[in-house]
Protein backbone atom coordinates (compact mmCIF):
# COMPACT_ATOMS: atom_id res chain seq x y z
CA UNK A 1 0.00 0.00 0.00
CA UNK A 2 1.36 3.28 -0.93
CA UNK A 3 0.48 6.63 0.36
CA UNK A 4 0.84 9.89 -1.32
CA UNK A 5 2.04 12.76 0.72
CA UNK A 6 0.75 16.05 -0.43
CA UNK A 7 2.72 19.03 0.49
CA UNK A 8 1.55 22.51 0.00
CA UNK A 9 3.51 25.57 0.53
CA UNK A 10 1.48 28.50 1.71
CA UNK A 11 2.52 31.69 0.03
CA UNK A 12 3.88 34.19 2.43
CA UNK A 13 1.48 37.14 2.68
CA UNK A 14 2.83 40.24 1.30
CA UNK A 15 2.08 43.73 2.47
CA UNK A 16 0.29 42.63 5.71
CA UNK A 17 3.07 43.38 8.18
CA UNK A 18 1.55 46.73 9.06
CA UNK A 19 -1.89 45.24 9.65
CA UNK A 20 -0.48 42.45 11.87
CA UNK A 21 1.40 44.94 13.94
CA UNK A 22 -1.73 47.07 14.25
CA UNK A 23 -3.77 44.07 15.39
CA UNK A 24 -1.12 43.07 17.90
CA UNK A 25 -0.96 46.57 19.27
CA UNK A 26 -4.74 46.80 19.47
CA UNK A 27 -4.93 43.46 21.27
CA UNK A 28 -2.22 44.53 23.70
CA UNK A 29 -3.97 47.81 24.43
CA UNK A 30 -7.30 46.03 24.97
CA UNK A 31 -5.63 43.59 27.38
CA UNK A 32 -4.00 46.42 29.29
CA UNK A 33 -7.28 48.34 29.46
CA UNK A 34 -9.12 45.24 30.68
CA UNK A 35 -6.49 44.55 33.32
CA UNK A 36 -6.64 48.16 34.47
CA UNK A 37 -10.44 48.08 34.74
CA UNK A 38 -10.40 44.80 36.63
CA UNK A 39 -7.79 46.18 38.99
CA UNK A 40 -9.97 49.26 39.58
CA UNK A 41 -13.04 47.08 40.21
CA UNK A 42 -11.08 44.86 42.55
CA UNK A 43 -9.82 47.88 44.47
CA UNK A 44 -13.37 49.18 44.79
CA UNK A 45 -14.65 45.82 45.90
CA UNK A 46 -11.90 45.49 48.46
CA UNK A 47 -12.76 48.88 49.87
CA UNK A 48 -16.38 47.83 50.24
CA UNK A 49 -15.95 44.30 51.50
CA UNK A 50 -13.78 42.51 53.96
CA UNK A 51 -11.04 40.60 52.20
CA UNK A 52 -12.22 37.02 52.24
CA UNK A 53 -11.60 34.27 49.77
CA UNK A 54 -13.50 31.12 49.00
CA UNK A 55 -12.53 28.29 51.30
CA UNK A 56 -13.65 24.77 51.94
CA UNK A 57 -15.16 23.59 55.19
CA UNK A 58 -15.25 19.92 56.10
CA UNK A 59 -18.30 18.77 58.02
CA UNK A 60 -17.40 15.51 59.76
CA UNK A 61 -19.32 12.28 59.35
CA UNK A 62 -22.12 11.43 61.75
CA UNK A 63 -23.29 7.81 62.07
CA UNK A 64 -23.71 6.24 58.67
CA UNK A 65 -23.75 9.60 56.91
CA UNK A 66 -20.37 10.46 55.42
CA UNK A 67 -18.53 13.75 55.78
CA UNK A 68 -19.27 16.64 53.47
CA UNK A 69 -16.97 19.24 51.93
CA UNK A 70 -18.60 22.63 51.52
CA UNK A 71 -17.17 25.32 49.25
CA UNK A 72 -17.90 28.62 50.92
CA UNK A 73 -18.21 31.72 48.79
CA UNK A 74 -17.02 35.11 49.98
CA UNK A 75 -19.32 37.16 52.17
CA UNK A 76 -21.66 39.25 50.00
CA UNK A 77 -20.56 42.69 49.00
CA UNK A 78 -21.16 45.41 51.50
CA UNK A 79 -23.20 48.32 50.32
CA UNK A 80 -22.70 51.78 51.82
CA UNK A 81 -25.52 52.67 54.20
CA UNK A 82 -26.74 55.45 51.93
CA UNK A 83 -27.20 53.03 49.02
CA UNK A 84 -28.80 50.16 50.90
CA UNK A 85 -32.27 49.04 49.90
CA UNK A 86 -34.54 49.55 52.89
CA UNK A 87 -36.50 46.55 54.15
CA UNK A 88 -40.27 46.55 53.87
CA UNK A 89 -40.57 43.94 56.63
CA UNK A 90 -38.36 42.33 59.20
CA UNK A 91 -38.00 38.78 60.45
CA UNK A 92 -37.48 38.56 64.20
CA UNK A 93 -38.56 36.47 67.14
CA UNK A 94 -42.33 36.66 67.62
CA UNK A 95 -43.69 39.85 69.15
Amino acid sequence: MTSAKRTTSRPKPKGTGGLTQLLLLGSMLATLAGTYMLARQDQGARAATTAQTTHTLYVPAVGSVGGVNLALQPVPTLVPASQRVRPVARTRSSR
Partner: protein
Amino acid sequence: MSPADPASWPELHFRAMGCAMSVRLVARIEAAQAPLRAIATLFAAVEKRLSRFDPASELSTLNRRSGEWVVVSPLLWSVADAALAANEQTDGLFDPTLLAELEAAGYDRSFDQVAATQPLAAETRLPLDTRARNVERRSGRELRLPPGVRLDLGGIAKGYTAAKAVDALRHWGPCLVDAGGDLVAGDAPPGWPGWPVGVAAPADAGASQETAERDLLLLWLANASVATSGVDYRHWARGGCRLHHIIDPRTGQPAQTDLRTATVLDPSAVRAEAWATAALALGAAAAEQAWLRKRIAGVLVDDAGLRVTPALQPLIAWQAPETLAQPTRL
Protein backbone atom coordinates in the same frame (compact mmCIF):
# COMPACT_ATOMS: atom_id res chain seq x y z
CA MET B 1 -38.66 54.13 34.45
CA SER B 2 -37.46 52.67 37.74
CA PRO B 3 -39.71 50.08 39.37
CA ALA B 4 -42.00 51.29 42.14
CA ASP B 5 -40.60 51.11 45.65
CA PRO B 6 -42.00 47.93 47.28
CA ALA B 7 -42.80 50.02 50.34
CA SER B 8 -45.23 52.07 48.26
CA TRP B 9 -47.74 49.24 47.79
CA PRO B 10 -50.87 49.03 49.97
CA GLU B 11 -50.39 47.45 53.39
CA LEU B 12 -52.75 46.48 56.20
CA HIS B 13 -51.65 46.19 59.85
CA PHE B 14 -53.59 44.26 62.48
CA ARG B 15 -53.04 42.16 65.59
CA ALA B 16 -53.75 38.44 65.74
CA MET B 17 -52.35 35.38 67.53
CA GLY B 18 -50.73 37.69 70.10
CA CYS B 19 -48.55 39.32 67.44
CA ALA B 20 -48.40 42.34 65.16
CA MET B 21 -49.29 41.27 61.62
CA SER B 22 -49.11 43.04 58.29
CA VAL B 23 -49.97 42.17 54.71
CA ARG B 24 -48.70 43.98 51.63
CA LEU B 25 -50.11 43.54 48.14
CA VAL B 26 -48.97 44.88 44.78
CA ALA B 27 -52.27 46.27 43.54
CA ARG B 28 -54.10 49.54 43.34
CA ILE B 29 -55.33 50.68 46.73
CA GLU B 30 -59.00 50.26 45.76
CA ALA B 31 -58.40 46.71 44.51
CA ALA B 32 -56.25 45.77 47.51
CA GLN B 33 -58.67 46.68 50.28
CA ALA B 34 -60.99 43.69 50.13
CA PRO B 35 -58.33 40.96 49.85
CA LEU B 36 -56.20 42.53 52.59
CA ARG B 37 -59.18 42.65 54.96
CA ALA B 38 -60.01 39.06 54.07
CA ILE B 39 -56.54 38.02 55.25
CA ALA B 40 -57.06 39.75 58.61
CA THR B 41 -60.31 37.80 58.91
CA LEU B 42 -58.50 34.57 58.03
CA PHE B 43 -55.96 35.06 60.84
CA ALA B 44 -58.74 35.84 63.32
CA ALA B 45 -60.64 32.71 62.30
CA VAL B 46 -57.58 30.46 62.68
CA GLU B 47 -56.76 32.01 66.04
CA LYS B 48 -60.28 31.32 67.26
CA ARG B 49 -59.90 27.65 66.45
CA LEU B 50 -56.29 27.04 67.38
CA SER B 51 -55.53 29.33 70.31
CA ARG B 52 -54.27 27.51 73.39
CA PHE B 53 -55.26 30.53 75.50
CA ASP B 54 -58.95 30.31 74.61
CA PRO B 55 -60.67 27.48 76.54
CA ALA B 56 -63.43 27.46 73.91
CA SER B 57 -61.10 26.89 70.97
CA GLU B 58 -61.12 23.61 69.11
CA LEU B 59 -57.50 23.03 70.10
CA SER B 60 -58.31 23.48 73.80
CA THR B 61 -61.17 21.00 73.43
CA LEU B 62 -58.85 18.46 71.82
CA ASN B 63 -56.28 19.00 74.57
CA ARG B 64 -58.89 18.47 77.31
CA ARG B 65 -59.84 15.18 75.66
CA SER B 66 -56.34 13.72 75.46
CA GLY B 67 -56.50 9.94 75.49
CA GLU B 68 -59.71 9.90 73.41
CA TRP B 69 -60.27 9.74 69.68
CA VAL B 70 -61.58 13.14 68.55
CA VAL B 71 -62.90 14.12 65.12
CA VAL B 72 -61.28 17.44 64.26
CA SER B 73 -61.89 20.13 61.64
CA PRO B 74 -59.92 20.11 58.39
CA LEU B 75 -57.97 23.13 59.69
CA LEU B 76 -56.88 21.52 62.95
CA TRP B 77 -56.15 18.27 61.12
CA SER B 78 -53.91 20.03 58.58
CA VAL B 79 -52.01 22.13 61.10
CA ALA B 80 -51.52 19.21 63.50
CA ASP B 81 -50.35 17.08 60.59
CA ALA B 82 -47.86 19.77 59.55
CA ALA B 83 -46.58 20.09 63.12
CA LEU B 84 -46.12 16.33 63.51
CA ALA B 85 -44.35 16.16 60.14
CA ALA B 86 -42.02 18.93 61.32
CA ASN B 87 -41.29 16.85 64.42
CA GLU B 88 -40.15 13.98 62.21
CA GLN B 89 -38.14 16.21 59.87
CA THR B 90 -36.19 17.69 62.77
CA ASP B 91 -35.61 14.33 64.46
CA GLY B 92 -37.84 15.40 67.34
CA LEU B 93 -36.07 18.71 68.01
CA PHE B 94 -39.19 20.62 67.14
CA ASP B 95 -41.99 19.19 69.27
CA PRO B 96 -45.59 20.46 69.31
CA THR B 97 -46.50 18.33 72.36
CA LEU B 98 -44.65 20.42 74.95
CA LEU B 99 -47.53 22.58 76.14
CA ALA B 100 -47.45 21.23 79.70
CA GLU B 101 -43.74 22.00 79.95
CA LEU B 102 -44.23 25.47 78.48
CA GLU B 103 -46.93 26.23 81.04
CA ALA B 104 -44.77 24.81 83.81
CA ALA B 105 -42.10 27.31 82.83
CA GLY B 106 -44.65 30.09 83.36
CA TYR B 107 -45.97 30.71 79.85
CA ASP B 108 -49.54 29.76 80.77
CA ARG B 109 -51.30 32.86 79.44
CA SER B 110 -50.79 35.26 76.57
CA PHE B 111 -47.34 36.77 76.68
CA ASP B 112 -48.64 40.22 77.66
CA GLN B 113 -49.97 38.65 80.85
CA VAL B 114 -47.07 36.40 81.82
CA ALA B 115 -46.30 37.88 85.22
CA ALA B 116 -45.02 36.70 88.55
CA THR B 117 -47.03 33.49 88.62
CA GLN B 118 -45.61 30.40 90.23
CA PRO B 119 -44.53 27.54 88.00
CA LEU B 120 -46.95 24.67 87.73
CA ALA B 121 -45.97 21.04 87.87
CA ALA B 122 -45.57 19.56 84.42
CA GLU B 123 -47.85 16.63 83.72
CA THR B 124 -45.48 14.53 81.68
CA ARG B 125 -46.57 10.94 81.56
CA LEU B 126 -44.64 9.73 78.55
CA PRO B 127 -40.94 9.95 77.83
CA LEU B 128 -40.45 13.30 76.14
CA ASP B 129 -38.80 11.98 73.01
CA THR B 130 -41.64 9.62 72.11
CA ARG B 131 -44.54 11.95 72.76
CA ALA B 132 -45.12 13.36 69.32
CA ARG B 133 -44.70 9.92 67.80
CA ASN B 134 -47.51 8.64 70.01
CA VAL B 135 -50.06 11.09 68.66
CA GLU B 136 -52.33 8.82 66.63
CA ARG B 137 -54.23 9.71 63.46
CA ARG B 138 -56.77 7.73 61.51
CA SER B 139 -59.10 8.28 58.57
CA GLY B 140 -62.10 10.51 59.16
CA ARG B 141 -59.81 13.24 60.56
CA GLU B 142 -59.61 11.54 63.94
CA LEU B 143 -56.81 12.41 66.32
CA ARG B 144 -55.86 10.83 69.62
CA LEU B 145 -53.37 12.52 71.91
CA PRO B 146 -51.64 10.28 74.44
CA PRO B 147 -53.16 10.74 77.91
CA GLY B 148 -51.93 13.93 79.55
CA VAL B 149 -50.33 15.21 76.37
CA ARG B 150 -51.48 18.54 74.92
CA LEU B 151 -50.62 20.31 71.70
CA ASP B 152 -49.27 23.81 71.23
CA LEU B 153 -49.61 24.83 67.57
CA GLY B 154 -48.70 28.50 68.05
CA GLY B 155 -45.72 29.06 65.77
CA ILE B 156 -46.75 26.46 63.23
CA ALA B 157 -50.28 27.86 63.00
CA LYS B 158 -48.88 31.32 62.30
CA GLY B 159 -46.66 30.10 59.47
CA TYR B 160 -49.37 27.83 58.09
CA THR B 161 -51.89 30.68 58.01
CA ALA B 162 -49.42 33.10 56.45
CA ALA B 163 -48.71 30.55 53.69
CA LYS B 164 -52.45 30.10 53.07
CA ALA B 165 -52.83 33.88 52.94
CA VAL B 166 -50.13 34.13 50.29
CA ASP B 167 -51.77 31.34 48.28
CA ALA B 168 -55.02 33.31 48.32
CA LEU B 169 -53.44 36.68 47.52
CA ARG B 170 -51.44 35.39 44.54
CA HIS B 171 -54.52 35.85 42.37
CA TRP B 172 -54.40 39.61 43.02
CA GLY B 173 -50.67 40.14 42.67
CA PRO B 174 -47.28 39.85 44.37
CA CYS B 175 -47.67 39.92 48.15
CA LEU B 176 -45.85 39.68 51.46
CA VAL B 177 -47.35 38.50 54.75
CA ASP B 178 -45.64 39.34 58.04
CA ALA B 179 -47.00 37.15 60.81
CA GLY B 180 -45.34 38.64 63.87
CA GLY B 181 -41.86 38.39 62.38
CA ASP B 182 -42.37 35.20 60.38
CA LEU B 183 -42.63 36.25 56.74
CA VAL B 184 -44.11 34.51 53.72
CA ALA B 185 -43.72 36.03 50.26
CA GLY B 186 -45.46 35.44 46.97
CA ASP B 187 -43.96 36.65 43.71
CA ALA B 188 -41.42 39.47 43.80
CA PRO B 189 -42.68 43.01 43.24
CA PRO B 190 -42.31 44.04 39.57
CA GLY B 191 -38.72 44.94 38.72
CA TRP B 192 -37.29 43.61 41.99
CA PRO B 193 -35.42 40.36 42.68
CA GLY B 194 -37.63 39.77 45.72
CA TRP B 195 -39.22 41.54 48.65
CA PRO B 196 -36.45 43.28 50.59
CA VAL B 197 -36.71 41.93 54.14
CA GLY B 198 -34.41 42.55 57.06
CA VAL B 199 -33.10 40.05 59.58
CA ALA B 200 -33.43 41.99 62.82
CA ALA B 201 -30.66 42.08 65.37
CA PRO B 202 -31.76 40.40 68.62
CA ALA B 203 -33.74 42.67 70.91
CA ASP B 204 -31.52 44.31 73.50
CA ALA B 205 -32.30 43.51 77.11
CA GLY B 206 -34.48 46.22 78.58
CA ALA B 207 -35.12 47.89 75.22
CA SER B 208 -38.69 48.92 74.64
CA GLN B 209 -40.60 47.70 71.62
CA GLU B 210 -40.54 51.21 70.25
CA THR B 211 -36.73 51.25 70.13
CA ALA B 212 -35.59 51.42 66.51
CA GLU B 213 -34.63 47.99 65.27
CA ARG B 214 -31.34 47.28 63.58
CA ASP B 215 -30.96 44.88 60.68
CA LEU B 216 -28.09 42.44 60.44
CA LEU B 217 -28.81 41.50 56.84
CA LEU B 218 -31.18 42.27 54.04
CA LEU B 219 -32.58 39.30 52.12
CA TRP B 220 -34.48 39.04 48.86
CA LEU B 221 -37.58 36.98 49.57
CA ALA B 222 -39.80 35.59 46.79
CA ASN B 223 -42.03 32.52 46.83
CA ALA B 224 -40.47 31.48 50.13
CA SER B 225 -40.76 31.92 53.87
CA VAL B 226 -38.41 33.15 56.53
CA ALA B 227 -38.94 32.47 60.24
CA THR B 228 -37.00 33.55 63.31
CA SER B 229 -37.02 31.95 66.74
CA GLY B 230 -35.35 33.63 69.63
CA VAL B 231 -34.95 33.91 73.36
CA ASP B 232 -34.31 37.63 73.08
CA TYR B 233 -37.87 38.89 73.46
CA ARG B 234 -40.27 36.38 75.03
CA HIS B 235 -38.53 35.75 78.34
CA TRP B 236 -39.35 36.26 82.00
CA ALA B 237 -37.89 35.61 85.43
CA ARG B 238 -38.75 32.94 87.99
CA GLY B 239 -36.87 32.60 91.26
CA GLY B 240 -33.92 34.53 89.92
CA CYS B 241 -33.77 32.41 86.76
CA ARG B 242 -34.28 33.79 83.29
CA LEU B 243 -36.81 31.59 81.50
CA HIS B 244 -38.08 31.67 77.94
CA HIS B 245 -40.56 29.94 75.65
CA ILE B 246 -38.25 27.62 73.71
CA ILE B 247 -38.52 24.25 75.44
CA ASP B 248 -35.82 21.67 74.79
CA PRO B 249 -37.72 18.46 73.97
CA ARG B 250 -34.86 16.41 75.42
CA THR B 251 -35.22 17.92 78.90
CA GLY B 252 -38.68 19.47 79.05
CA GLN B 253 -37.08 22.68 80.35
CA PRO B 254 -36.43 26.04 78.69
CA ALA B 255 -33.46 25.35 76.41
CA GLN B 256 -30.01 26.10 77.82
CA THR B 257 -28.92 27.80 74.66
CA ASP B 258 -26.07 30.08 73.72
CA LEU B 259 -28.04 31.34 70.72
CA ARG B 260 -30.08 34.50 70.84
CA THR B 261 -31.93 34.06 67.57
CA ALA B 262 -32.05 31.61 64.68
CA THR B 263 -33.51 32.51 61.28
CA VAL B 264 -34.37 30.04 58.51
CA LEU B 265 -35.41 30.71 54.93
CA ASP B 266 -37.26 27.86 53.26
CA PRO B 267 -39.96 27.26 50.65
CA SER B 268 -42.14 25.90 53.47
CA ALA B 269 -43.20 28.22 56.29
CA VAL B 270 -43.70 25.26 58.62
CA ARG B 271 -40.24 23.85 57.92
CA ALA B 272 -38.67 27.30 58.42
CA GLU B 273 -40.37 27.65 61.80
CA ALA B 274 -39.45 24.12 62.88
CA TRP B 275 -35.75 24.40 62.02
CA ALA B 276 -35.43 27.85 63.58
CA THR B 277 -36.92 26.51 66.83
CA ALA B 278 -34.84 23.32 66.68
CA ALA B 279 -31.65 25.40 66.41
CA LEU B 280 -32.42 27.17 69.68
CA ALA B 281 -32.79 23.82 71.42
CA LEU B 282 -29.52 22.54 69.93
CA GLY B 283 -27.32 25.55 70.66
CA ALA B 284 -24.89 27.22 68.25
CA ALA B 285 -22.36 24.46 67.62
CA ALA B 286 -24.80 21.58 67.15
CA ALA B 287 -27.24 23.74 65.16
CA GLU B 288 -24.40 24.75 62.86
CA GLN B 289 -23.59 21.12 62.08
CA ALA B 290 -27.25 20.12 61.68
CA TRP B 291 -28.00 23.03 59.36
CA LEU B 292 -24.97 22.40 57.18
CA ARG B 293 -25.86 18.75 56.86
CA LYS B 294 -29.49 19.54 55.98
CA ARG B 295 -28.49 22.39 53.63
CA ILE B 296 -30.61 24.82 55.64
CA ALA B 297 -30.51 28.46 54.51
CA GLY B 298 -30.23 30.44 57.70
CA VAL B 299 -28.50 32.72 60.17
CA LEU B 300 -27.50 31.83 63.72
CA VAL B 301 -26.93 34.73 66.09
CA ASP B 302 -25.17 34.42 69.44
CA ASP B 303 -23.25 36.87 71.59
CA ALA B 304 -20.14 36.39 69.44
CA GLY B 305 -21.86 37.44 66.23
CA LEU B 306 -23.70 35.80 63.39
CA ARG B 307 -23.11 32.79 61.20
CA VAL B 308 -24.63 32.61 57.74
CA THR B 309 -25.01 29.27 55.99
CA PRO B 310 -23.80 28.91 52.40
CA ALA B 311 -27.35 28.22 51.19
CA LEU B 312 -28.50 31.67 52.33
CA GLN B 313 -25.66 33.69 50.86
CA PRO B 314 -27.01 34.10 47.31
CA LEU B 315 -30.13 35.76 48.74
CA ILE B 316 -28.32 38.40 50.78
CA ALA B 317 -28.52 41.93 49.37
CA TRP B 318 -26.33 43.47 52.03
CA GLN B 319 -24.86 42.67 55.42
CA ALA B 320 -24.32 45.29 58.12
CA PRO B 321 -20.63 46.24 58.31
CA GLU B 322 -20.38 45.74 62.07
CA THR B 323 -21.33 42.07 61.67
CA LEU B 324 -18.32 41.42 59.44
CA ALA B 325 -15.85 42.09 62.20
CA GLN B 326 -17.15 38.98 63.92
CA PRO B 327 -17.30 35.32 62.90
CA THR B 328 -19.69 35.48 60.01
CA ARG B 329 -19.94 32.23 58.15
CA LEU B 330 -20.49 28.56 58.54
